[in-house]
């Protein structure tokens, strides 16, 4: 019985790879399996090679894993490209005529199921477009998937948007594929997947989880400029905001996006913007404005591969230091790094509370990897969402204050906040250095005082931040430190290492700034060897750790900058070799 399976669907952009993958992921999820998807697609609408891997498991899984078990190929290039990543005993579903181009060695240990999907689609439906569903039907037969579940998924996908007829034809195509497979494939070649009860889980992407988090956190203003791979957040909010009384603005650029969000937040609405790559560079200016004027704002940065235009649809962790040091001058800022889709949801709510409590910009630094890909998560608990607006004054409270000072020096650095339209709260907000009332003041005495006041907020915030989390055996002597999307592959690498008799533990850094130097140092001090995993060239997390402490032992870097995320073996192998 199979307990863990990876299916790759490969073809050209425009083949419907994404659609087929989404349907398959949903079917497997409904059969009670844990899902992790991984899309590898070009920055292109039609024509270039693309693939979509769906890993499903009966156990909880954290990443895309190391192997591919089934390859559903729409063309010859897809087979040639991926045949060598296919596991021993792997299955290939393909048109058939391309097989002659494979070398005997490439065909070894694999089962090929030729399937005339295009001919069938044309004969029956007069349109090649149905080839996906026919091939999917074939796979359903091989894996013995529940056809009624499949019909439900197809109906949900198409009924509203495209109508009954489209549902009928797609279901027919799946049945046809299934029947065709029955004729061609012997029953001993089937690999029945166990069906479990679909537990209380969601199949959702990180970007959508952030959209949902923003919605329940009370965010009602969102301004952004279209950019890969962050746009899904917007597409989600634009859908649900109207009925919740929210506004989404498509701005002319990212400069406008962040400034509009700051404006809306200053007026009293929880506001957010999202971006990636070059958009983040443009937002740096507004980021500084938020820090200087103490207007809360939440910025989501879904990291893609840079520099410059880079590889817009692929994942990297190369913008860590940008947000920690970015914008001219020095401001208090909080940078959160969720490692999972669950954390995308939770940290978004946290981000809004932190932004308002400490009246500073909060960056939610995520990655394309779990931003655009789907995974199963335990259904979000939306019944007890805490909304904390910090020192936001009511008009009544304001009326009791004599000589209100918006930027009053306080013990914790945070000043009571009034909103425009409130009586007795009239004040000035200055992007120049200013005094407690908000009026420009360039004196050394004032500058020193206000600088310390603003930066003090980070010290106050410390108790409120998301602390690092430790996975694995506490007393292991090998330590691994990582953040963000490396959570998945590192946790799976721990298991692989344990299988080879090596005990290791992992510290997931979840707030990048202000940095938890004490916790990280304590962790390192319990290790004889320590590795820092970075999905970037410069080893930015490793640099960050070194910049905050003298760790005592040498921190070895494990880096990857191929525009692909880590697989567990990329982390386990170098550690195993060093023993």
């Amino acid at each position, binding site marked *: 019985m199979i307990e863990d399976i990876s299916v790759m669907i490969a073809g050209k952009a425009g083949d419907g790879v994404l659609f087929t993958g989404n349907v398959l992921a949903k079917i497997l999820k409904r059969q009670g399996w844990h899902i992790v998807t991984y899309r590898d697609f070009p920055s292109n609408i039609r024509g270039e090679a693309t693939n979509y891997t769906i890993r499903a498991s009966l156990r909880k899984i954290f990443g895309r894993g190391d192997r591919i078990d089934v390859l559903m190929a729409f063309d010859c290039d897809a087979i040639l490209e991926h045949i060598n990543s296919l596991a021993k005993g792997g299955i290939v579903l393909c048109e058939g005529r391309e097989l002659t181009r494979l070398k005997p060695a490439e065909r070894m240990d694999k089962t090929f199921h030729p399937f005339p999907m295009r001919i069938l689609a044309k004969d029956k439906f007069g349109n090649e477009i149905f080839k996906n569903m026919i091939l999917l039907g074939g796979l359903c037969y091989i894996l013995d998937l529940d056809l009624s579940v499949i019909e439900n998924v197809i109906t949900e996908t198409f009924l509203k948007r495209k109508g009954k007829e489209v549902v009928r034809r797609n279901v027919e195509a799946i049945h046809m594929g299934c029947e065709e497979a029955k004729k061609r494939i012997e029953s001993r070649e089937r690999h029945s997947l166990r069906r479990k009860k*679909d537990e209380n*889980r*969601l*199949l*959702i992407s990180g970007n959508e989880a952030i959209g*949902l988090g923003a*919605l*329940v956190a*009370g965010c*009602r*203003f969102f*301004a952004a400029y279209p950019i890969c791979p962050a746009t899904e957040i917007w597409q989600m909010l634009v859908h*649900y905001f109207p*009925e*919740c*009384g*929210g*506004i989404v*603005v498509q*701005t*002319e650029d990212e*400069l*406008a*996006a962040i*400034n*509009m*969000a*700051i*404006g*809306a*937040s*200053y*007026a*009293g*609405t*929880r*506001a957010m913007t999202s971006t990636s790559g070059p958009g983040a560079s443009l937002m740096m200016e*507004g980021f500084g*404005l938020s820090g200087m*004027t103490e207007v809360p704002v939440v910025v989501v940065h879904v990291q893609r591969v840079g520099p410059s235009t880079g590889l817009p649809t692929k994942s990297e962790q190369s913008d860590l230091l940008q947000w920690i040091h970015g914008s001219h001058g020095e401001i208090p800022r909080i940078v959160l790094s969720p490692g999972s889709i669950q954390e995308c949801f939770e940290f978004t709510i946290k981000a809004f509370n932190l932004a308002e409590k400490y009246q500073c910009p909060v960056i939610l630094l995520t990655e394309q990897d779990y931003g655009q890909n789907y995974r199963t998560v335990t*259904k*979000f608990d*939306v019944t007890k*969402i805490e*909304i904390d607006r910090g020192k936001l004054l009511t008009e009544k409270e304001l009326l009791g204050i004599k000589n209100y000072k918006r930027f009053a020096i306080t013990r914790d650095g945070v000043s009571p906040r009034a*909103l*425009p*339209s409130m*009586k*007795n*709260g*009239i*004040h*000035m*907000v*200055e*992007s*120049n250095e200013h005094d407690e009332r908000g*009026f*420009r003041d360039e004196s050394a005495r004032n500058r020193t005082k206000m600088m310390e006041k603003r930066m003090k907020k980070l010290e106050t915030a410390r108790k409120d931040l998301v602390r690092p989390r430790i996975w694995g055996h506490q007393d292991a002597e090998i330590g691994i430190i990582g953040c963000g999307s490396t959570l998945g592959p590192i946790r799976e690498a721990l298991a692989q290492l344990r299988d080879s008799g090596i005990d290791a533990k992992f510290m997931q850094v979840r707030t990048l700034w202000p940095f938890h130097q004490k916790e990280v140092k304590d962790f390192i001090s319990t290790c004889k060897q320590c590795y820092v995993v970075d999905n970037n060239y410069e080893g930015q997390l490793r640099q960050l750790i070194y910049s905050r402490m003298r760790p005592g032992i040498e921190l070895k870097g494990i880096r990857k900058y191929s525009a692909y995320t880590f697989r567990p073996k990329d982390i386990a192998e170098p550690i195993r070799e060093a023993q």
Partner: protein
Amino acid sequence: MKINPEDMVVVTGIGCHGRLNNYFRAYGFHSLHGRALPLAQGIKLANKTLSVITVSGDGDAYSIGLGHFIHAARRNIDLTYIVVNNMIYGLTQGQTSPTSQKGFVSVSTPFGSKESPVCGLHLALVSGGTFIARGFSGAPHQLIRLIEKGIHHRGFSLIEVLSPCVTHNRLNSYQWFKENTYDLDHEKGYDSRNKERAFLSLNEKQKLILGLLYQEERPSYDDLSLPGEAPLIRSKMQVNQNKLDKILKKYE
């Protein structure tokens, strides 16, 4: 104008005009160079009961913030945009600005500017601005009237103000503006609702026009985005459980 001080926000950019906030008893935001408009639009969208006055200089509005200007006009967000035009960068000590004339000599163009000036009124007209006017600091009565009208107008109103820089700009003085302006408000039969006529006026006259060039009524972005009287800041932060269940269902 019967606006309570606490119901008005004055947003300024960076430049000599940026001092203006200090002379108002109203909420004020001295923002970034070129970004006054996006900030002001965010404020207006979050609380449409506020009167939002945005002030920029010619560098702020027509150079570094030009992209925002065009888009604010086409969105027709209900705010008043006052652009103080002195045809020079004053705060940075006298460089050529986007509205300086061709051939203008300054510390940044000692051999004369090679570029043609930008006309903000023209840009507002082609970008869908719904209230477009120009005043002159040498004619304060007309200016007050235009600003009042602009604030009353529902939609994006541009009031450019010719405002000589007596320190750095020796060419475009009060006298120069007096000789080089043409007042539409005094033109008999001028119809500010006629867009074609507005274009012609900008093109025909050899002088800078003054007065109300163009006005039309068009639904504003803020009203389209959030119909009704209640501002966005009054929207409930909690989401109804039934609604949430429906949303979550999609991912099950």
